[in-house]
């Protein structure tokens, strides 16, 4: 989409280092600090083990269950009179070690498995995927209990088992990511260029995967620590080592005597898990190039004022026969700190009973203009100026509700892509009757009307189509259904956005015929958005050309095709492959239609 950038884009030339980005986010900064504390505790644990190996077991029998802050015991003592802080620090080592075992196993199994499965697919993929769903169909705690019952409470065994149970998470992530990357064009290119699979995987695939993988590993390390602590808490841990889980279990048992005892190991565990998570989130964002430091919330709608831009034409009330008139329309989207304008002051006039073709290349703002008229712009879009006159009333001067009501009762919309414009979960019949029912039409009457409309749009067995789901009908039929849906609300203006682009050539002609017939029958005015000059020539009385968010030429179709005034119009016309044919066809068709006036040809 071509767009004029109003505000300066952020400078992308200097990319700060990953660490720098991580530290910029206050949350990740907290994570780094916490992680530092964990590391200090780890070092302290090793030092204590070396200097005073029995410090964690030394009981102060005069001070059982001492409160935190008691002289000599910063966090108090437990029910055995042992110092809580010393035990907490010493326990860091075993708890971390347990986490590392589980994590290493999970990564060693999951990463190669995921890479192979995602890259090669086939039978290997089937087998590995089935194994992972087997592992995922049992809660890991059940498997851990089964292992412990037969092999005992060794931390090595239970953490290796936990690693196996966590491996499917890594496997699934890698597999999905690799599968997505594998079908990318640049990977195909690399393969054609003769790069080996190993090289492609390490160069292209791992690069994409590392961000999510880092986050996954941090999440799993949290899981490993909490599960290990949980096992100890259940009394199924390795009783020969001091862990946070063991301390938690002791604290729980002594809760009536010493209420805060379980808090300390719980806090240590929670903060450690938080540290991993926060740092990893920061790292992931940094690897993906998202700057977590600046929060770019879209500006609230109230803050944008409707600024009336001086319009190129007089802003007086449009003439009687001007059903729809757009004056100086400005549409923008918030981006960074400002707005990016995609339409800058567009003017359009649609006269009663006529068809206006809105031409332009993709990104010229023609669809945006159409959606603005339909009151269907995305939520982020800002209508920051202009007027939209419908039947002599400026819609933009009306309150939201009233504007919505008027547009819905007068204007209907025929979309471009027939399949994606039907809700896949409801039958065609439901989708056709729903708007009628919302307007208070009875169930039976609504069904009859929908059937009649389907018949009118050329569907031979309307009953069957009504009972079908969207995926059960063809594209051409879906477009007829959408046209029927548009007609159901009795509009006098029809806005069709590239209504034939997605269809086969033969179906295209039928749909255009249908539109022409309906217009004559119901006396509608049509705004036809298209980049296809053939379609425009076939159907339109007037033409407006849009380029880079502005209307550069507006003329009758006759004049436009015969004497295009604007340079860009001439370029467009010259770009049509068989220019003469289009024009010849147009002139011939025009004479037929004028002969046949009043238009009854198709009704």
């Amino acid at each position, binding site marked *: 989409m071509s767009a004029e950038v109003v505000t300066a884009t952020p400078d992308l030339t200097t990319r700060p280092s990953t660490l720098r980005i991580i530290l910029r986010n206050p949350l990740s900064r907290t994570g780094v600090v916490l992680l530092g504390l964990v590391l200090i505790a780890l070092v302290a644990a090793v030092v204590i083990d070396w200097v005073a190996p029995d410090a964690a077991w030394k009981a102060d029998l005069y001070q059982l269950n001492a409160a935190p802050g008691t002289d000599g015991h910063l966090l108090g003592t437990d029910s055995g009179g042992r110092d809580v802080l010393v035990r907490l620090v010493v326990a860091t080592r075993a708890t971390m070690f347990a986490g590392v075992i589980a994590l290493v196993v999970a990564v060693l199994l999951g990463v190669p498995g995921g890479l192979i499965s995602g890259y090669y697919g086939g039978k290997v993929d089937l087998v590995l995927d089935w194994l992972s769903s087997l592992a995922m169909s049992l809660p890991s705690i059940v498997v851990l209990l089964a292992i412990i019952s037969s092999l005992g409470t060794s931390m090595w065994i239970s953490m290796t088992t936990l690693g196996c149970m966590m491996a499917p998470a890594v496997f699934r992530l890698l597999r999905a990511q690799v599968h997505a990357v594998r079908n990318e064009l640049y990977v195909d290119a690399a393969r054609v260029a003769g790069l080996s699979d190993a090289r492609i995987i390490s160069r292209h695939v791992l690069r994409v995967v590392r961000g999510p993988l880092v986050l996954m590993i941090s999440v799993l390390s949290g899981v490993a620590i909490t599960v290990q602590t949980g096992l100890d808490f259940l009394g199924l841990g390795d009783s020969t080592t001091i862990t946070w889980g063991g301390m938690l279990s002791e604290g729980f048992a002594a809760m009536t005597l010493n209420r805060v005892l*379980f808090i300390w190991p719980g806090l240590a565990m929670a903060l450690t898990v938080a540290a991993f998570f926060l740092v990893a989130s920061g790292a992931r964002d940094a690897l993906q190039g998202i700057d977590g430091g600046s929060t770019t919330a879209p500006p609230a709608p109230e803050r944008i004022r409707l600024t009336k831009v001086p319009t190129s034409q007089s802003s007086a009330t449009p003439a009687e026969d001007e059903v729809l008139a757009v004056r100086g329309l400005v549409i923008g989207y918030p981006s960074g700190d400002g707005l990016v304008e995609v339409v800058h002051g567009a003017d359009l006039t649609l006269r009663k009973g006529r068809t206006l073709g809105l031409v332009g290349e993709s990104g010229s703002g023609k669809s945006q203009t159409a959606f603005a008229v339909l009151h269907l712009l995305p939520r982020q879009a800002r209508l920051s100026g202009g007027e939209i006159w419908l039947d002599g009333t400026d819609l933009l001067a009306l309150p939201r509700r009233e504007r919505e009501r008027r547009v819905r009762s007068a204007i209907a*919309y025929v979309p471009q892509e027939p399949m994606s414009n039907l809700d896949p979960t409801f039958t065609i019949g439901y989708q056709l009757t729903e708007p009628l029912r919302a307007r208070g039409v009875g169930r039976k009457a609504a069904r009859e009307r929908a059937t009649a409309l389907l018949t009118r749009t050329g569907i031979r067995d309307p009953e069957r189509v009504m009972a079908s789901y969207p995926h059960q009908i063809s594209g051409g039929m879906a477009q007829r259904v959408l046209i029927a849906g548009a007609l159901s609300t009795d509009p006098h203006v029809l806005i069709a956005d590239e209504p034939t682009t997605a269809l086969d050539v033969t179906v295209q002609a039928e749909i255009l015929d249908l539109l022409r017939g309906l217009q004559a029958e119901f006396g509608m005015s049509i705004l036809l958005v298209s980049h296809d000059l053939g379609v425009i020539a076939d159907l339109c009385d007037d033409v407006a050309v849009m380029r880079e968010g502005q209307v550069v030429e507006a003329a009758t179709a006759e004049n436009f095709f015969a004497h295009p005034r604007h340079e860009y119009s001439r370029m467009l016309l010259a770009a049509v492959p068989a220019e003469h044919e289009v024009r010849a066809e147009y002139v011939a068709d025009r004479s037929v239609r004028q002969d046949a006036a009043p238009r009854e040809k198709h009704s």
Partner: protein
Amino acid sequence: MVRLLFRRAVAALVLMIAVAVAGFVITGLGNSDPGRSILGPQATAAQVEAENHRLGLDRSQVEQFTDWAGGVVRGDLGRSYLGDRPVTEKITNYLPVTMSLVALSMVVIAVLSLVLAVASVSGRAWVDRCVQLLAVIGHVLPGYLLALLLLLLFAVQFQLFPVFGYTPIGESPAQWLRGLALPVIALALGSVAGAALQARGALMDVLEADYVRTLRSRGIGGRSVLFRHALRNASPAWLTSLSLGFVALLAGAFMVEKVFALPGLGTLSVEATSSGDRPVLMGVVVLTGGLVVVVNLLVDLLQMWLIPKARTA
């Protein structure tokens, strides 16, 4: 659609058999001596051997498995080594507590996550922050730790809820709910955010779909679009996260039960683990595996009901 269901059911059955085999292999890894642990250290070697023979443990593992599996098909899970009671009887005694806990938690998670997701896409920024906070809490505070904190705060400190114990729903529904309130909060809170984030993401995607714009062009109001069309189309992601959450809930329940001294499957399994009661453990393995498989099938069915296209896949 019938064929699709049949295929799913067969796959589920194969998975169940695999779970049973894996469970049997795992619980049989060690060289435990159930006869000895039942009779105690005073028993003679001959007595122990006789006991093992009575339990059928002197046969090959394959023979033991086929014998056990044959029983399972007939609804007989064997007899516990402890007290010589049928495993099915033990499990039916302990199961209601865990099922109450897990089912209530599932309801809380489903309702809360949906409400949060809908509120979030309706443009309430504080809801987003709430969900993000919940997600971090859920990750950082595992269920049992949350349970401990709730126990300390509301049961020990303020004595608003019972500290221990379980009242069957048949006895007094109000007491049942009161006893489970804290455990359910502890168990559910962590999973709410995950499901809410899934639902929110899917809803955001659906609300940007072409057909939503077309529906709006026909004058279908925002409420109908959101509740009738968008929620239905967004449901698969949410349902998947719920079915994954179910496995996590079962695991969490084992530990939360201990905190509130609830006599559930967790209590039973821990007891069986410490005493090497293989038949009970195998029963728990088969039961939890079966529950997970059934929940997954239910989710599949629900998905087929909500998304017509899923019926043909």
